[in-house]
């Protein structure tokens, strides 16, 4: 179904990841699952975009990573939000809401 593969702009993916991680540390797979679940299966994150995004944000200092044990006792890398990441999240949310309002306006007036 084409709708389940809605293209996510890079910026919005970051936003979603940051928001997801606010709930607490989790590994990459869990982040993808969480986003899919929370969006009612509409937003499916491609693995090909997820990990580059995670690494990018780690380089920028928005999230930090640590090796730990997963639920089934396997080694996995857990990501958590940093303070800078928290601030970034607030900014991104603000931007997103502005964009959303703008688009709604356009749709209503036309």
């Amino acid at each position: 179904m084409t709708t389940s593969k809605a293209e996510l702009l890079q910026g919005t993916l970051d936003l979603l990841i940051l928001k997801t991680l606010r709930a607490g540390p989790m590994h990459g797979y869990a982040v993808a699952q969480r986003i899919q679940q929370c969006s009612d299966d509409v937003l499916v994150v491609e693995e090909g975009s997820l990990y580059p995004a995670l690494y990018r944000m780690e380089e920028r200092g928005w999230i930090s990573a640590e090796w730990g044990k997963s639920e089934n006792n396997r080694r996995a890398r857990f990501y958590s939000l940093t303070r800078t990441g928290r601030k970034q999240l607030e900014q991104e949310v603000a931007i997103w809401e502005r964009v959303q309002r703008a688009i709604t306006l356009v749709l209503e007036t036309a």
Partner: protein
Amino acid sequence: MKREIDEELRFHVEQRKADNIAAGMSKEEAEREARKRFGNWQSLREDCREVRGIAWLDNLFQDFSFGFRILLKQPGSLLAALAALTLGIGLVTIMFCAINTLMLRSLPLPDPERLISTTVPAWALPEFRKQQTTFEGLVSFGDFHANFRSTGTPSRREACFISANFLDVLRAKPLLGRNFLPGEDASGAEAVAILSYKLWQEEFQGDRAVLGSTVWVEGSPKTVVGVMPVEFRFPINDDLWVAADVTQGIANRDTGFVFGRLKPDVTLAGARAELNTIWTRLQPPRRNDERPVEQIRVGAYVDALTGALYGKNTIGSAILGMLLITLFVLFLACANVAMLTLGRAIKRGREFAIRGALGATRRRLVFQLLAENLVLFSGGAVGGTLAAGFLLHWLLSRMPSDTTHWRLYASWWHFEIDGQVLFLVACLIFLTNLLAGLWPALQATKRDVNELLKGETLLSSHLGTAGFQRLLVISQVSAALVILVGAFALIRQRQHLNDVHLPFDPKTMLTVNVDLTGVADVGRFFEELDRDLNQTPGVEAAALASDGFAFWHGVRPIEIEGRSYPREEDHPLAPARVVTPDFFRTVNLGLLQGRSFGAGDRFGSEPVAVVNATFARQFFPQVNPVGRRFREGTNGPWFTVVGCVPDVLSYGTNRREPVYYLPLSQHPSTTMEVLLRGRGRPPSVWSKTVDAAVARLHPDLPTFEASTVQQELDGVDAGITANSLLLGACGTASLFLAAVGVFGLITLSVNQRTNEIGVRLALGSTKARVVMSILKQALPQIGIGLATGLLLSLALVRILGSVLPATASEPVVYVGVLFLLGGVSLGAVLIPAVRGARVEPMRALRYE
């Protein structure tokens, strides 16, 4: 790093697989689906690695090994590139080495940069010493060859007559014994000497009891008071230091050379100012029309040794000239490599396009090409350094040994490739890699992916490199031309040097020097020696002369009877030679007119002279010179010309100089050369005969510099030898590089036109016409290259002027170079053209 990413991604796959299995898929299906979601695993890993940033090191390594493997696949171009780089880098390395040794190293003494030499004449030294305040001490010395004898056979040593405080000024300490005491250099004081380590070993076998023994220097006894350590050879290569009053202008020698050590807080300019103040005070006021007295010049000590202090920095400029040339060669090499890189990049155009489409950044691709190039350049560097080592070794072995007239070879010059040189080479490689690799890499990775994917090879129009390629051809040809002009000019000069028109065979003529300084009653000694040698069985002819055939000992102003000379400068200058009567017979100079010297020309009888043909022509035109008179200076005795002999051309002068000969009997000399022609035995054996004859007459006298005249001539200018060898190497290298470069470039452009050629052939054109069309495109480039190179050479000759040898303006040099380079370039163009035309039309068309 790689492993961590892999592990993380694999974990994700495992989780997905588990979920799939839980949702009901089979194990294989689950795995497949999980992996599929990742898409292109490889590129994902790469992208992740790239994002992680620390990946660059991994990338580099990967690029390196990839580049290595790619290069191995094209051995032809690899070898060509390696050869080019080896040549270029090797030659530049040698020049760095030379510059390092000759210009940057300093004396092996403490604080050598405070040692300053001046042009103060030695006779003024006591006054200067009294008045100066800027130097810790002023020292003067005179340096020359001296007869030396201790316990063994007499020998000839480089000796230095020097002020007593010289060791203090140099801050050097003797290995044994002591320095001179102040006052030991005053005339009349006890004669003392200090030996060098080498002399101590050779003459005394390192016996520590040497202190206090007596040695004879030029016949006068000196007491040994010290021995210097092994590296002390001041000023250049001396073995002996004798305390002496240098201000007396040691008879016949150059007046001393004054230098000193600056006090710690004094500047060079301050010292110069003070010295010149003292100098002006010492001079009597000059009349208006007299030339002003030269200012005292000061400069670093090493500069004085290389002539820089006197304004003729010959070594420095020669070296810089050579460096320029080797950099040109390196440029050629880089141009070659750039072209090869371009060729490689073009062949792999499709690969780059695909990688670009798959997401590789342009930066990555450029890095890849540069890394491949780095492999190449490293290989070239290793090869180049090795080649430089070999070439250096070979060059040094070809240089004449240091013992003769040529004293520019200082003992502290150690030509070796050490850390500094290698570091410079490494920097050079880095820079040239960028230079040669960046442009082609940028061009080949341009973003027009669709276009590139359509064709298997890139057309040059897509790359916009046609202009660059043309430029490469032109610049390679011009650079090669400039270098070849230099090489040919030096070769020609060497030819001139060998163009010796001697009336005898220089390879069988022995020459041995004898110096009688310090021996009493010189006149009879040489006469007896002359007689002795001529009476020895087997000797065809023997004579003595004041000069050999390699050097003139200066010219003297002369005055012809009957002519007037308003100013001093109007006096003509001519070299003189003092000879024994048998001289003309020995060197096969038949008399043109008159007679040679004879028994009647004794000391006290009428002064006579024999002149050569040029002398007669210049000063006694149209008349018989016999009977005419001339004199030296303005008030010497008048010489009557008694004979005229033909000219002897030597030392590469194709100028004819007027020369006059004076009899030894009337002009006693202390230094003479023995010239001997013998039958049946080689000159080396005859030199022993001479030694024996000399020893019979005076047992303490050494003979020195025994060689054939040919060897004497060969040893003359080692500077030219070194330069010509090196330039010869550069010239050969540049010819090779230019040929390879042009060949490669034309091949490249022909390859790019393959389908065009195929179309033309298919439409009925002949192979010959195709070749012509290729030539029509390529030949103008060669022509422009030759013309540019020619103009550049002529301009350089004009600018550099007197630094270059006279042969640089000879037309035959340019004609020769044009022929050589033109011919080689023509060949380098023809071969690819003919090969390109031989392509099968069908194959060419398939390249569409």
